[in-house]
């Protein structure tokens, strides 16, 4: 049956004499425009408008993480502690790797909590589209809110774990061992932020790729395990032979963890050159990651 197509002129029933009078008014600015290849969200202004959602999500994830575990908040403190003990036995006693002037427990624990912070951020961010896909399909809000809230939640966890480390240090102090915490600690927030940005950028990059290739997340967990061994978590830079130093310089996390311990204890001397390389890599990765992410969020519902 032939249909009367009416596509060329959208009907505006209200365009009566009154409507015309109003229609002359100067063109208004749309609240938002949806268009091909225009970023749907994650515009800085949009992100700011949804800051309350961001705070609620951080709170939600933080509280939920503590509510679901048997040990409750204790788990967050026990886990790095136990891992440090295992490292002490395996790498300290069996492999006999040196730990600078720091007591092994402090050395491993500081490394583990920083690495966990990075690894958890990266893993969670890379799962953004897979984990929140159902939500994204139904409600509009700037998608970047999710990775940002996850990184922030991990930052809170990290701070909580840092308190445990402080307690361990205090115990050592009481037993008479001197651990210097100097003014360099002021650089700590900057170093943490750099790690967070690296994880965010890399995570966003992987998240965008998972839109097309789901199994990429498998690679993430595997790679992170291997990556840790090249990141000064279990040994200091001084252990690395000169012929391999260049390789370490290409690993931004190695530099960041070195800087982080250096700012905490002053036992390792962070070098400018690797730190600069790490910062530049972080900026490039972050920019690429965010770019890919905002490109992916517009079309991901079509493929996943």
């Amino acid at each position, binding site marked *: 049956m032939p249909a009367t197509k*009416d596509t060329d002129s*959208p009907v505006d029933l209200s365009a009566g004499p009154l409507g015309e009078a109003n229609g002359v008014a100067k063109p208004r600015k749309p609240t938002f425009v*949806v268009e091909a290849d225009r970023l749907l969200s994650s515009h800085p202004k949009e992100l700011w408008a949804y800051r309350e959602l961001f705070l609620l999500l951080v709170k939600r994830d933080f509280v939920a993480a503590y509510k679901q575990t048997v040990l409750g908040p204790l788990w967050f403190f026990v886990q790095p502690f136990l891992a440090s003990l295992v490292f002490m036995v395996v790498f300290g006693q069996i492999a006999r790797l040196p730990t600078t002037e720091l007591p092994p427990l402090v050395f491993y624990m500081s490394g583990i909590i920083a690495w966990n912070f990075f690894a958890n951020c990266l893993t969670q961010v890379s799962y953004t589209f897979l984990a929140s896909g159902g939500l*994204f399909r139904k409600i509009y809000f700037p998608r970047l809110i999710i990775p940002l809230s996850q990184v922030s939640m991990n930052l809170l966890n990290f701070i909580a774990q840092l308190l445990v480390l402080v307690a361990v240090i205090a115990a050592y102090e009481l037993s008479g061992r001197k651990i210097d915490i100097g003014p360099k600690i002021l650089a700590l927030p900057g170093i943490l932020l750099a790690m967070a940005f690296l994880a965010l950028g890399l995570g966003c990059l992987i998240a965008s790729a998972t839109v*097309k290739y789901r199994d990429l997340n498998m690679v993430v967990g595997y790679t992170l395990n291997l990556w840790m061994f090249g990141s000064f978590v279990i040994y200091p830079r001084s252990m690395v032979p000169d012929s391999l130093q260049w390789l370490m310089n290409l690993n931004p996390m190695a530099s960041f963890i070195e800087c982080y311990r250096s700012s905490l204890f002053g036992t390792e001397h962070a070098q400018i050159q690797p730190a600069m390389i790490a910062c530049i890599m972080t900026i490039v990765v972050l920019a690429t990651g965010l770019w890919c992410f905002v490109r992916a969020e517009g079309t991901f519902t*079509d*493929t996943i």
Partner: protein
Amino acid sequence: MPVALEARDISKRFFLGERNQRAFFEDMSAMAMSGLRRLFQPAETSKERASSHDFWALKDVSFQVSQGQTLAIIGENGAGKSTLLKIVSRITQPTTGTVRVYGRLASLLEVGTGFHPEFSGRDNIYLNGAMLGLSRREVRSRFDRIVEFSGVEQFIDVPVKNYSSGMYVRLAFSVAAHLNPEIVILDEVLAVGDAVFQKKCFDRMEEIINEGHAAILVSHAMSNVERLSQVCLWLRHGRIEMLGPTHEVVSRYEKETAHEVVSHYERQTAEQYQATQPEPIASFSHWSVHSKLATGPHTIISGQARVTFRFEIEMTTSVADGKIAVSIADAQGLTLFAHEGELRQTTAGKILVTLELASLPLKPGEYIVSCTISHRNHPAAFLRAIPELTLLEDNSVERSGYYGLLNLPASLSVER
């Protein structure tokens, strides 16, 4: 009235086909090949690559909604309604085209997404409100109304994982129903819960539509479409089939879908009939409808005149003590009316059945008329047939403001 939402030439293409290992290598090699090709054949267009994997869910859809107006989107499943809503509510991007939205838009495509089971109803109200774009202050000012509407006051501080599913959806709908946006996008499937709460949902939706400045509604119930919207957009296979005043679009939509439903219904009853009744006791030879409003053998103008149905039926067996019924059903198969009579001592051969109606006050549309014969030996004997009684709109009188199933003679006056 100023425009609240304007969509221009919206098209959306989907790629069909799985993403798998092969797809990955194909992507990679395609990237490499296109790079090589560009070196040697710079003139090649990307159109050639638009393969059979492409599927246009929407094609060149344009419409606008003015402030104070409600637009209804209708169409069969898979016509592109959801895709259109998703584009308008910024969940996915169009392949081409532009949507301009003037004012705060809230789209309620589903309720309860983003609820966290571990959190109390109270926390979830704030969380869900924030997701839907409300500030904490706005949620606080609506909090009491939301809770009251949902009827879960007692359990507001209990984690929602302990809620019954009914309480859960009621709370979810309540949050969504109190956003007070300038432009609202509603999907009818939102009406949730038991019958009482569903009624409440519908009422609230109507309120939202009435108090909001503009609305887009997706619905399969034409009575709701007619009641709530002024403009209607009919999508078919991703294209605009018709766009215009609601009653015009709906009446044509109903007429056309009725054909499909009727033929489906006919097939179904024929199958049923054959299953239960291998040897038919009767068959139709002819039927007609007589009225001064009749415009054809099976077509009359909807109105108040006397209507007579005449059925000529060929009986294949004799019936000692049977019943005969004539019923009228709407295009959805809902029986609107049935009248039953006795069928005594009939021998094989032709019989004439006549049904007189003082009037047939149904709204214009397609109807199914059936005649059923049953008797003691064949309790399930059906003689179901003759679909398609068409009632036409009475153009001689001005269309009075009615909707619903019946076109009863009525007048409305207001006094003070």
